[in-house]
């Protein structure tokens, strides 16, 4: 039997909606499992990504941690796919771009209603926020884009099959959606 295709997935500044949608491929997951195995992914609890064939990234980049994870994926995955609106253009988290980061932090940690012990967190363990939420293609090179918020299970199915078979994925009209 041929070696299985290795897939890693992660969620950066996303809502796990894309992951949920992925799981919606339901019983097709079983046939998928025959040809792929999962490396780092919320589905496996593996902490660092090893060499993989395909990396699926959900969510945009909002903090320094996201940058590190994204780079880890880029270094280890032969093919990197931006999954969902947030990865492609920042999505809903990018709505914070309309405000200054300074104001966001003050509102969340200092001046906001119901904040007790007002203080901006400064633990070196914590990742720092970028001034803007950015789509992942502005940080690393992305090979394919899977639009939708979230992309439907059919989109995942379509893409993964194409990539596994070594084709360029294409989507029929009905599956191209930005919402």
């Amino acid at each position, binding site marked *: 039997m041929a070696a299985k295709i290795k897939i890693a997935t992660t969620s950066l500044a996303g809502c796990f909606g894309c992951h949920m949608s992925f799981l919606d491929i339901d019983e097709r997951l079983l046939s998928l499992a025959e040809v792929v195995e999962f490396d780092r992914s919320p589905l496996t609890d593996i902490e660092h990504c090893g060499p993989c064939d395909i990396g699926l990234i959900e969510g945009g980049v909002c903090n320094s941690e996201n940058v590190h994870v994204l780079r880890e994926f880029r270094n280890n995955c032969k093919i990197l796919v*931006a999954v969902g*609106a947030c990865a*492609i*253009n*920042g*999505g*809903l988290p*990018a*709505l914070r*771009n*309309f405000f200054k980061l300074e104001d966001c932090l003050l509102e969340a940690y200092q001046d906001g209603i119901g904040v007790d012990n007002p203080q901006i967190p400064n633990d070196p363990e914590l990742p720092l926020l970028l001034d*803007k939420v*950015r*789509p992942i*293609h*502005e940080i690393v090179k*992305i090979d*394919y*884009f*899977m*639009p939708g*918020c979230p992309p439907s299970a059919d989109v995942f199915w379509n893409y993964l099959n194409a990539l596994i078979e070594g084709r360029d994925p*294409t*989507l029929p*009209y*009905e599956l*191209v*959606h*930005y*919402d």
Partner: protein
Amino acid sequence: MSGTLCIDGIAVPFSDGQTIIEAARSAGVYIPYLCHRPGYAPYGSCKLCTVKVNGRTNTACTLPAADGQTVISNSPDLQHDRQRITQMLFVEGNHFCPSCEKSGNCQLQAVAYHQNMLDNHYPHFYAQRELDASHPDILIDHDRCIFCNLCVRASKEKDGKEVFGIAGRGIHKRLIVNSPSGKLKDSDISVDDEAAHVCPTGAILVKRSAYLAPIGERIYDHHPISEVACEKAVLDTQAAKGHASCDQAQLAGQVPQNSGSDSHYAASMPPAPDIKHGR
């Protein structure tokens, strides 16, 4: 003047005063557009409708149709540039479709779907633009304005008012409102004005009309813009019967025989697409 022109190998008849884009639409041949709207004065700014006419680049929405023109619209090069231009519009403003009321009914989005556009390609501009929610019935979200000028033309030509204007130069273009405060509430726009409904994107929205159509029943959910844009026009014409390709047309003597490049081109074209299932 009326006659026939040839668009991607399809013979397209036109009548007096029609632009290429309108002749095409009437015949069920879709050329993408955003700043154009049937019944409006041509403007020619978005450049989505860019085609080659007898080898020269031109905008189909402004160029009058003329007998014997050979128009190329769906070449790989033109389609590629069209997608890039659409992507420019997406990164110039702020388009977050999942949180936009227009999603599913938006021409910008539909044009992008039509082109199978999967990402925004360019770095975002992170434009800082404002929201004008001052009016009781109408909202302007400047983030989604593509400067197509349709609201300006609608207000002036259709409503007999001059509510909107476009100011600024270059990348600093902005939509402005004709009122002392610059706010929509102090202008003389009314929700019945055509200008309140003409915006091809979600930049001008009528309040309380959001999400009336559920997902799945929105305009472009199942019908690509190539069909929607042509539908009414096609019903009105004989074109629904199917297209004559240019060489057929030539046999029928509708297109002058003299143009060697015409027939050469027609011969190398793929079969004419079936417009009912446009893609």
